[in-house]
């Protein structure tokens, strides 16, 4: 992954910085001592054409002794520098692993600490609402209904934040298999049919390539399709329509979601994929759906495009590489 490659480069630079000076300068000197000095001595011996016995006594022997000593010093310096570099690299590797563990622990802790109390509130409010603890009047019921809506919103928000955190922290792993895009899209349409019927919004299927398959994470891409569809339904007016189109070209499998909503002004299109960005604050939502969708698509090495015209509606296009197996993560 590109992001990971960048991190690796930064880590490598940090190792060098932590050593306070560039170790390669000293390594160059060390190798010069180890290699160049003995090489020069060897050249001197070759050119002087002395007999073996002459080498071992007199000036030549002295030169060889000094050369040997310098060479040993070179080895010693090089050994120490390399040891320092390897220790730093090991430290960083350990820290990186520890930081990954912390990210996973964060996800587990947040899940546990936020979802447990929310479950308690939800079930106890349900019990009061249903009259299991005693009768309540209509006005009290209305207040409890508001509480239930807020709890559902909080649950969606927690799940959204956790999904986003897992993807961005690199904790989310893709469980890839080859699956039919039209089949999972039809399934998501069925799931959202009740929501669409409530608003009298028509969902139109345009599956131009019904046999189109992709190699990816079925659950995560289903989530991306649901996010686009539910957004389309949310913003479409009553009696409006949302069209889901599946087609492909030689490079990409394409999922297109077109709605007849109010459209997005040009100056706000770039903000669409920001976390907690809700361009229409009247509509209920966590402001995380499109950010998660974009992350999911990018995890698959795909792209998401937006075309929108105020007053006419919006079009979101997910482009997924035809054969993701050729692009390693």
């Amino acid at each position, binding site marked *: 992954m590109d992001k990971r490659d960048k991190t690796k480069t930064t880590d490598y630079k940090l190792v060098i910085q932590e050593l306070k000076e560039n170790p390669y300068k000293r390594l160059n000197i060390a190798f010069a001592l180890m290699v160049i000095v003995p090489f020069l001595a060897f050249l001197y011996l070759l050119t002087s054409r002395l007999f073996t016995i002459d080498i071992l006594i007199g000036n030549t022997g002295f030169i060889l002794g000094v050369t040997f000593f310098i060479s040993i010093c070179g080895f010693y310096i090089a050994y120490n520098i390399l040891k320092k570099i390897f220790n730093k690299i090991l430290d960083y590797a350990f820290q990186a692993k520890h930081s990954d563990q912390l990210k996973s622990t964060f*996800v*587990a802790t947040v*899940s*546990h600490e*936020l*979802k*447990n*109390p*929310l*479950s*308690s*509130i*939800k*079930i*106890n409010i*349900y*019990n009061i609402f*249903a009259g*299991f*603890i005693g009768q309540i009047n209509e006005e009290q019921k209305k207040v409890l209904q508001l509480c239930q809506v807020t*709890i559902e919103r909080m*649950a969606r928000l927690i799940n959204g934040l*956790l999904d986003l955190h897992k993807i961005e922290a690199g904790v989310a*792993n893709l*469980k890839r298999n080859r699956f039919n895009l039209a089949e999972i899209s039809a399934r998501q349409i069925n799931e959202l049919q009740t929501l669409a019927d409530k608003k009298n919004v028509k969902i139109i299927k345009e599956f131009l390539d019904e046999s189109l398959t992709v190699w990816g994470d079925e659950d995560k891409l289903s989530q991306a399709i649901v996010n686009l569809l539910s957004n389309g339904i949310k913003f479409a007016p009553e009696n409006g329509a949302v069209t889901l189109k599946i087609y492909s070209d030689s490079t990409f499998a394409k999922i297109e979601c077109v709605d007849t909503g109010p459209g997005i002004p040009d100056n706000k299109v770039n903000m669409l994929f920001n976390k907690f960005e809700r361009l229409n604050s009247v509509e209920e939502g966590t402001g995380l759906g499109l950010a998660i969708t974009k992350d999911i698509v990018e995890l698959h090495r795909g792209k998401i495009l937006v075309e929108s015209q105020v007053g006419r509606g919006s079009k979101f296009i997910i482009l997924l590489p035809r054969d993701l197996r050729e692009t390693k993560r």
Partner: protein
Amino acid sequence: MQTKDPKKILIVEDEKELVLGLATLLKSHGYSIVVAYDSLFGISLAHKENPDLIILDLGLPAGGGLYVLESLKNSVETVDIPILILTAQQGGDLEEKAKRIGALAYLHKPFDPELLLNKINEALSA
């Protein structure tokens, strides 16, 4: 509502407020309830009370829910008791693992109480 021969449900959950909610919900639907707040007590109560169904949390003190699930599914006395998992834990393979060991259903917190009741009805009428 069940009036005769109430089915017994063991709740193994450490969140007291959630236990209160679950107990109220289940009692109002005619079930009798026994509660354990940690793993080891959960295992011993399952053997002692021989419940018709167990609702089990995974993030439990003293061993964890998967340990309880494994112990109960490895024991001849408790192997046939249907176990529903209720959990706030999110982990890639947890659900698969729990189902492989023998959990009947896996519900994520915060769960829908009506969905829980449906699962219990299904499990007890099977």
